[in-house]
């Protein structure tokens, strides 16, 4: 499927030091989607990733310093709100996500207008090999299933789509990389959540952001975010309003 003329959303691609794999991601995405629907967010890369985006002639945002993965997602969501996009879909810049899966996520949204469409590596698949990350993912998937009331098998997959109506909630919530806490928060607001099986390619270049230090502290931070959400946002549903209108003057004012 080629969506070059039929996309109402924003495909946001956070990039941090992905120069080795970025060119292929850019080529694949540009061949499939109109560039006005693509937003690359270079999160202060130091390996020349932005030069690849510049050469491709794409509109991109470049954080002057590394703000972290989550802040890149927040930047993308704010851009989606200020434009007239119906949804924002996150697609990693490291080449691990497949265009076919991205298209399936968009198709799923267009079929039933789910508010949150998540990719899952483990749905309808064998259990992952035992590792610190897989144990963390499985534990939080179980916890998220209990708290959200929806069966979730992979909370840490970066491939996800959020509808415009729920972007303000996602921006308001205290989150750590927008995983379990985002799913629980949106579920508490009444968002319709759907999970689709996706395939994640093995990383060919660069390094994962989930190193040992982050792997150890990620569960604690997620629990803090979840508790904070329960304590400080007991009536989260009231945050959800009508679909926010775009701000036509936003781009002009920079």
């Amino acid at each position, binding site marked *: 499927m080629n969506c070059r003329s039929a996309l109402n959303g924003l495909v946001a691609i956070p990039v941090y030091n992905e120069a080795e794999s970025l060119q292929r991601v850019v080529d694949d995405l540009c061949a499939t989607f109109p*560039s006005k629907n693509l937003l690359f967010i270079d999160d*202060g890369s130091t390996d020349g990733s932005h030069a690849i985006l510049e*050469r491709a*002639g794409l*509109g991109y945002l470049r954080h002057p310093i590394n703000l972290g993965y989550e*802040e890149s997602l927040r930047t993308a969501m*704010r851009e989606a709100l200020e434009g007239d996009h119906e949804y924002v879909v996150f697609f990693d810049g490291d080449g691990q996500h497949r265009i076919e899966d991205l298209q399936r996520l968009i198709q799923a949204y267009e079929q039933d207008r789910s508010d949150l469409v998540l990719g899952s590596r483990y749905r309808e698949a064998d259990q992952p090999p035992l590792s610190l990350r897989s144990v963390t993912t499985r534990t939080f998937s179980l916890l998220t299933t209990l708290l959200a009331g929806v069966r979730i098998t992979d909370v840490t997959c970066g491939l996800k789509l959020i509808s415009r109506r729920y972007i303000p909630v996602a921006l308001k919530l205290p989150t750590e990389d927008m995983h379990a806490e985002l799913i629980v928060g949106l579920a508490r607001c009444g968002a319709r959540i759907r999970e689709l099986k996706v395939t994640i390619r093995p990383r060919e270049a660069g390094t994962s952001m989930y190193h040992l230090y982050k792997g150890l502290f990620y569960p604690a931070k997620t629990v803090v975010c979840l508790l904070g959400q329960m304590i400080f946002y007991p009536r989260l549903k009231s945050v959800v309003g009508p679909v926010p209108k775009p701000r036509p003057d936003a781009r002009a004012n*920079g």
Partner: protein
Amino acid sequence: MNTQSSLVVVSILLLVTAWLLRNFFDKKISSGQTLFWLVLLVGAEILTAFPVLIDRVSVLWGNLVPVSWITFAALVLLVFYLLYLTVRLNGYARTVELARGMARLERRIRELERRPGEPQQGAPPRE
């Protein structure tokens, strides 16, 4: 503490005070932080030079052993200072907003600078 030890401690504290003031005048440390450390250092110098004051304060505090009093006071001070620093560090949200604003302005500049003949947004992909 005998006189010799007191002299050594006071000398060290005076050196630290001098280092602090030097950094303040070189504009490496803000006035607020300098004042905080200056009060602490001068206080420590006075207490070291006049140990009888430590005993008096211990009696005022409720007949605590002087060492316990100093340890307790230092601990309370450090905890509050850490809390203050935590709050200051979390002014990070402003940095994020500034970075985001810069990113958007840079994009605007790039769009304005883009000349005909260069790749445009919405252009078909290169083969």
